[in-house]
């Protein structure tokens, strides 16, 4: 009770607050809340257009004027980031990642998360009007959110955002494998939508390395001989009696694309000797967009894995991380 009282007092007089934002597709999900011991008490949420970063900056300034102890936390949405099992420079060397060109963080002394240094700077430059205090990788978010689901045997965890998915193979003991899956051409399109002036301002000449190159020499083999596309087409044909709408077809295509990517990634995990091998029996999908149950069915039917789909609010997940870091 006493601690609660002090907490309340602190909240009223010297509150620790946080502005969380997660770029998601064409929009930025932002939220403001009071940092408490184990969570952030969200009091306001806003969805801001990705191009309208000034309104986010204005909101941030307004908050800081009222609450000087405001921490700005963001989720890094860049493509060139990843995670590797184990910590240290030797891990980077083993997986062909130039350690000097990445910003890395050893999580729980078991695995390393990294992001391209150039892209980090680009991200900070993009939100230069906001004094960023915490920048989280989606892998960290996924790892943190997967904790209650972890078992002794490795399971596959997927964090899906519009156009991109972050995949991790995790068990209670360690992180086995991680991969970024680019689902459709949406992220590229999003980059295209950036104004020319903005592009000039950012002055990105290109990335120093490409993650795709890491696994380029690994030959991808299909996991089953079944022609997945044919099967899906058959199922659609059975269900639908009328003309198939354009949106439904796009969604189907998207799900299939994601599934193909996932299958490919799983295959890479099984065949790449740099990773320890173990059969994956469970797939847990955390979805921040609007993924359909079809994907679960595809996984169960094609990969013979137990799959489940959970909705995830990235803001809530990031809030927990923020509270864990600055709440005490």
């Amino acid at each position, binding site marked *: 009770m006493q601690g609660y009282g002090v907490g309340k007092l602190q909240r009223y*007089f*010297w509150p*620790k607050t946080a502005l969380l934002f997660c770029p998601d597709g064409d929009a930025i999900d932002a939220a403001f809340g009071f940092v408490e011991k184990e969570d952030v008490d969200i009091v306001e949420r806003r969805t801001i257009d990705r191009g309208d970063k000034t309104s986010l900056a204005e909101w941030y300034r307004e908050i800081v004027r009222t*609450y*000087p*102890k*405001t*921490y700005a*936390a963001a989720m*890094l949405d860049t493509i060139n980031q990843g995670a590797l099992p184990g910590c240290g420079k030797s891990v980077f060397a083993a997986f062909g990642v130039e350690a000097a060109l990445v*910003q890395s*963080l050893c*999580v*729980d002394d078991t695995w390393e*998360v990294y*992001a391209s240094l150039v892209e*980090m700077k680009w991200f900070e430059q993009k939100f230069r009007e906001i*004094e*960023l*205090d*915490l*920048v*989280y*990788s989606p892998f*960290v978010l996924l790892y*943190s959110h997967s904790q209650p689901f972890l078992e002794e045997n490795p399971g596959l965890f997927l964090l899906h955002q519009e156009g991109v998915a972050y995949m991790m193979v995790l068990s209670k003991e360690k992180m086995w494998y991680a991969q970024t899956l680019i689902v459709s051409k949406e992220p590229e399109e999003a980059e295209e939508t950036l104004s020319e002036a903005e592009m000039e301002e950012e002055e990105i000449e290109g990335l120093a390395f490409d993650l795709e190159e890491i696994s380029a020499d690994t030959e991808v083999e299909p996991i089953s001989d079944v022609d997945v596309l044919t099967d899906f087409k058959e199922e659609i044909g059975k269900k639908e009696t009328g003309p198939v709408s354009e949106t439904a077809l796009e969604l189907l295509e998207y799900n299939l694309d994601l599934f193909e990517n996932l299958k490919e990634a799983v295959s890479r995990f099984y065949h790449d000797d740099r990773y320890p091998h173990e059969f994956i029996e469970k797939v847990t999908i955390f979805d921040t967009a609007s993924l359909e149950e079809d994907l679960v069915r595809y996984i169960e039917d094609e990969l013979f894995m137990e799959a489940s789909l959970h909705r995830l609010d990235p803001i809530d997940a990031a809030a927990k*991380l923020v509270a*864990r*870091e*600055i709440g005490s």
Partner: protein
Amino acid sequence: MRYSFIKPKPKPPIDSESKILAIFLAVTLLLIFGFSGFVLMKKRSMAKETLLMRQQTEQLTRKSHAYREQIRRIEHLAKKYETISTNNTLLKESIQNLFDLVPDQITLTKAVLDRNGLVLYGVTPSKDVYNYLLLAPLKSVFQRNVTTFYPLKNGWWRFVSVNEGSIESGSEVQE
């Protein structure tokens, strides 16, 4: 445990408004404590002063009592002095009157005047001179007069006149 790529920047512990509020509060508290301290010191000093003044009052009361006693004694002495002075004046007048009473023919050899009366010793040419010229006025003054005559060789008379119960002595008794 760190989860973020970057470390959070240090934040000001309190905002400017809270800082002003804290300063104001501190100044207020300082003033309150200062004033309380001052009042406490003043109270202690006043308590000491009160004690001192009470002691002084007691001393002065004691002195006042002593002076009052002294005044009373002096008044008493003054009254006594006055009485004595009056008595002396009266006595002087009485003696003056007494000597005025004595005629030229009679010679007094001794006179004793006290509270009880007057005793006269003297020589008279004759009893009649004494009786007519001295006894008559003495009788008017004293209530009781007893005179004893002793003849002398030359034919004169020595007398002892005892006069008691004067009017004055009577009035003194009344007082």
